[in-house]
């Protein structure tokens, strides 16, 4: 295809991506080094019979004029990145010298909002990705073991947790684990503690969020593995049997090698999706116990005072995180395909 024709075909799609993905990244970068204007303060002299006093008042008009003239705010460089709500460099230094040991230090570090959010996001990604892949694999094996006729309805039911809107799926689970819901009641009965409530406990909240994550992403792994199992080379399986391979050896040397590429693909997609975990925290109303990076940005953006600069700085750090997560894939692609494609 000629360069010119290629350009015309790509134009609509590329324009949309440049305008609404590439430029916003630039916009986020710029916003993150500007802070909102401080209020303009004027000194007023009040003279009475007993002499003059000066007091300071906020000049509302001048403040508004300044904010309208320069909506970006004032340039502050990397100050927002290093403040308490983000990288908190000075606080970390203080914590390090004040804390008694590494455990104490980590505990205090996680109380800083950015590190807390980062810790939850990484824990969530690190647990949900492998667990949902394993669960999906076992489901695929079980569906593969039932007669063909029954598989359709089973696939239908299994797809539901993944297809449903994340906010809605998380709400449905949340209402069930509510202290007055069926699962909440069951947990209270099991623990023998009538006051047990997911809403009040940080570890339980984390566990529930992770359970939701596994519930909602296992179907994807299931579908991919199920499709993979249909294409396992039957000839190799049968010749392995003739050669005397046991059941386990057939799985180990024929089935698993066939499924490994699928697993890499799935892990990549799931890591990207889990890293942006956001809706369940809104649904579970979990902000007091667990925050993710995405939720951190969302809560800065919402509300009466929109903290655009703070949200922008977190966004830049999150994008960096995504690039770091993807870097093994990018490097591998660079090495293998990059040379061959030209």
């Amino acid at each position: 295809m000629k360069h010119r024709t290629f350009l015309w075909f790509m134009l609509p799609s590329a324009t949309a991506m440049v305008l609404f993905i590439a430029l916003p990244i630039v916009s986020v970068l710029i916003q993150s080094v500007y802070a909102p204007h401080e209020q303009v303060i004027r000194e007023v002299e009040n003279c009475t019979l007993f002499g003059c006093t000066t007091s300071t008042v906020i000049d509302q008009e001048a403040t508004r004029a300044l904010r309208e003239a320069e909506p970006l705010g004032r340039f502050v460089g990397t100050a927002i990145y290093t403040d308490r709500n983000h990288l908190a460099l000075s606080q970390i230094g203080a914590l390090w010298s004040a804390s008694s040991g590494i455990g104490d230090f980590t505990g205090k570090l996680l109380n800083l909002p950015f590190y807390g959010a980062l810790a939850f996001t990484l824990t969530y990604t690190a647990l949900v990705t492998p667990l949902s892949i394993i669960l999906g694999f076992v489901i695929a094996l079980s569906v593969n073991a039932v007669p063909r006729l029954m598989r359709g309805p089973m696939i239908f039911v299994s797809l539901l947790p993944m297809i449903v809107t994340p906010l809605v799926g998380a709400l449905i689970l949340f209402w069930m684990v509510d202290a007055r819901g069926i699962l909440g009641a069951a947990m209270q009965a099991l623990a023998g503690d009538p006051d047990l409530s997911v809403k009040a406990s940080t570890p339980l909240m984390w566990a529930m969020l992770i359970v939701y994550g596994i519930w909602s992403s296992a179907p994807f792994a299931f579908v991919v593995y199920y499709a993979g199992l249909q294409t396992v080379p039957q000839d190799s399986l049968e010749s392995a049997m003739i050669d005397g391979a046991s059941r386990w050896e057939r799985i180990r040397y024929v089935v698993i090698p066939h499924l490994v590429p699928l697993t890499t693909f799935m892990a990549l997609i799931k890591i990207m999706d889990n890293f942006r975990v956001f809706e369940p925290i809104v649904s579970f109303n979990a902000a007091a116990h667990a925050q993710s990076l995405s939720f951190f940005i969302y809560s800065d953006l919402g509300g009466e005072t929109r903290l655009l600069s703070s949200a922008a700085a977190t966004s830049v750090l999150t994008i960096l995180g995504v690039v770091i997560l993807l870097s093994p894939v990018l490097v591998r692609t660079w090495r293998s395909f990059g040379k061959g494609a030209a």
Partner: protein
Amino acid sequence: MTTRIADRRPAALQLFLTGFLVLWLIIAAFPFLWTLWGSFKVEGDFFSKADWMNALTGPLTQAETGAAFTGAGYWGAWVQEEFWRAALNTLIVVVSVVCISLTFGTLGGYALSRSPYRYAFWLLIVALVFRAMPPITLVSGYLLPFFQWNLWGHLPTAIIVLVAINQPFTLWMLTSFFRNIPKDLDESAMVDGCSRFQAFRHVIIPVMWPGVITTGLFSFLLAYNDFAVTAMLLSKENQTMVPKIASFLGTTQTKGNVMFAVSSVVSVTAPLFLLVLFFQRQIVSGLTAGAVKG
């Protein structure tokens, strides 16, 4: 069909797998059935302090409304809180997003699948990085310019933003789909004197529908399920369904109103059920498209 020898399993293994499958099916389906049933009860029954069985039998529903089931939650959400307006907005957003993304995506995907040059490959890698970025990070980039240019709050803004966020995924899927259509097809049309666009128009478009329908389903899901973009970029009167549900949670914690959220959750889920029911095959093939081909 007879069982292949290689498929025979020891009885214990078969029993374990069947038991596991039953357990999973309950875990996957029960929450939906429970919520559907509960949405026709009053709040005192669905969130029962006394006994969780109340949500099934519904003594308070019987006492308060005189019947075993009540549509009060649905009435409150759809009529009183004007959920129908949100449903209409969702319809507009979703239909526009699907149509525009597919138009942009088929053109771009076709070009990417037919270009032998290296930049086509790198464009796909850039799209992969874009695909990985959480949408909310982009939203924080939109807000200030959109406020400045008075673009904030309108449906078309949200639509075009969703189209753009959808593009990386659409491009990937359609590119891999177009690669499976033999190059000879459009190249022979060009030998016969068609221009590249004519070849696309008369030869590729008639055979591309299965892939386009599958991709369209996923664009639909992305637009329908979105919360980050629609919650931050739409004004209150233009809200779509998902942010509307979130707003039920925030403001209406008074007695009975939580049932508005429950009934609207059921309303939002119903179309998705139908979607899976009718398009299960396409969804499964779409999910595995990238994976099985490697």
